[in-house]
Structures are given as C-alpha cells and as structure tokens.
C-alpha cells in the first residue's frame, strides 16, 4: 500500500496499477480474439498505453522522473511500430483483401 496525495485527496498507487493491468489484459484478449490485422494493431496500441500508465504511476510513486522519460520513449516506439505496421497492411491490401490474419500465412517457413 502506498498512498499518493493528489489535490488534497488520498489515492493509492495500486489503483493505477490495477487499471493498467485491466487495460493490458483487454488488449491481450483483443490480439487473441480478433482476426482482423488492423484491429490487432489497435489492440497492441492499447497494451502499450496500459504499460505507459504503469510507468507513469511508478514514476509518481517513487517521485522519480525516469519513469516519465521512459513513457515518452515507449510512445516513440509505439508511433514507429504503428507507422511500419500500417504501411505493411496498406501494401497487403493493395494486392488483395485480408480481413483475417489466417489468410496471410504464406510467409511461414
């Protein structure tokens, strides 16, 4: 238990971590359940956001800026990942439809 005083009220750091865990699990479930490659990319973004929330929460709890710096780095990585993933997706859709990732299994060794 670690209480944070925010604007005069007492919040617990574990609340933020629990929210982050729930969002991460939702994202992981989306990657598993959904077959649309675009939606899978969106769910990966959701998981990255949840991880960012945990980083910022720990940064606030420790009163150390490094967590926020790392959250910024992970945002950069997420942006790069989205750009490359979407470019690949557009390239695939130029040739044919791919509403299911199972349709894209020719590349496996």
């Amino acid at each position, binding site marked *: 238990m*670690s209480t*944070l005083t*925010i*604007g005069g009220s007492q*919040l617990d*750091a574990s*609340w*933020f971590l*629990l*929210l982050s*865990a*729930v*969002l991460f*699990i*939702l*994202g*992981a*479930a*989306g990657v*598993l*359940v*959904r*077959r649309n490659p*675009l*939606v899978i990319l*969106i*769910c990966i*973004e*959701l998981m990255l*956001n949840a991880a*960012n*929330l945990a980083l*910022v*929460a720990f*940064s*606030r709890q*420790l*009163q*150390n*800026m*490094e967590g926020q*710096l790392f*959250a*910024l780095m992970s*945002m*950069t*990585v*997420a*942006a*790069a990942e*989205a*750009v*490359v993933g*979407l*470019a*690949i997706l*557009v390239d695939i*859709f130029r040739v044919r439809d791919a*509403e*299911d990732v199972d349709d894209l299994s020719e590349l496996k060794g």
Partner: protein
Amino acid sequence: MAIALFVISAIVAVLGGLGVVVSRQPIRSVLSLVLVMLALSVQFLLLSAQFVFAVQIIVYAGAVMVLFLFVIALIGPARVLAKTRLRFQTWLSALFVLVLLGLMWAMLQGVQYRQPEKADMNFFGTVQSIAVGLFTNYLYPFELTSILLLVAAIGAIYLSRKRIDDL
C-alpha cells in the same frame, strides 16, 4: 475530487477498452481507442505528468489515431470489415485472460513499493524537469529514438512506394 476524477476516467478507459475489443467495425475500435487515450491522459494529469499528458493528446490521440483513421479511409471501411467468426479459440483466449488476470492480481498483491525520493513536487513532471532528464542522463537514448523514427519513416516510404510494375 481527485478520487472522482480517477473513478470516472478509469470507467471510461475500461469501457473504451471493451469497445476496442468487441466492436465489429474497425473504425469503431479506433474511436474507442481515442476514448481510452483521452481517459488515460486524465490519469497522467492526476499523476502530475503534465508533459506526458500533452504528448499523449497531441501525438497519440492526435497523430497516431488519425493515421489509423486515414488507413481505414484509404483501404475502404467495407474491405476491412471482419466477416469470419472465431471457432474454439474464443474459449482458449477466455481461459488465457482469466489466468493472466489472476497472475496480475497476485503480482499486485505482492508489490513492494520503495520509499519515495522526496522530490520537489512543484518541479515534478514539468517540461523543464523532462528536458533536464532528456538532455543530461538520457541524451544517448533520446538521440537513438530520433534514429528509430528516421528508420520507421524510411521503412514506411519504402513499403508504400509505387512499384514499376504498377505503372
């Protein structure tokens, strides 16, 4: 006040996350994710991370999500619509989610918080403190992210170029 803000934005974030996973049209998934990001930006503000809050809204909700919307518009919403349904994998993934939830819960029970470092909270999370960190201790990682962005931009241009045989 802060508790009410936390609870409201947490509920909005979880509902948005459910919307991302459940909605059949990808465009609704994207808009739900924008909702999640706005709710998370409120959380960042509660955690006194003003700069991360601004970057979350400008870069994530503003740029990355608009990129997703652009791609859906480019491909055509009808072509990205999911037509097939999952078979047995749904049950397996439900099991996986339950196991993961239990694991995360157990981890949260065992978190050992370190003693806070008693930083100056007036200075915490401001642009100035972020910049001091980025340009002193973390200069090399910061420069490496610029190389990463350059590589991603070149890769995106290479992948989406017009090919000779398309002409």
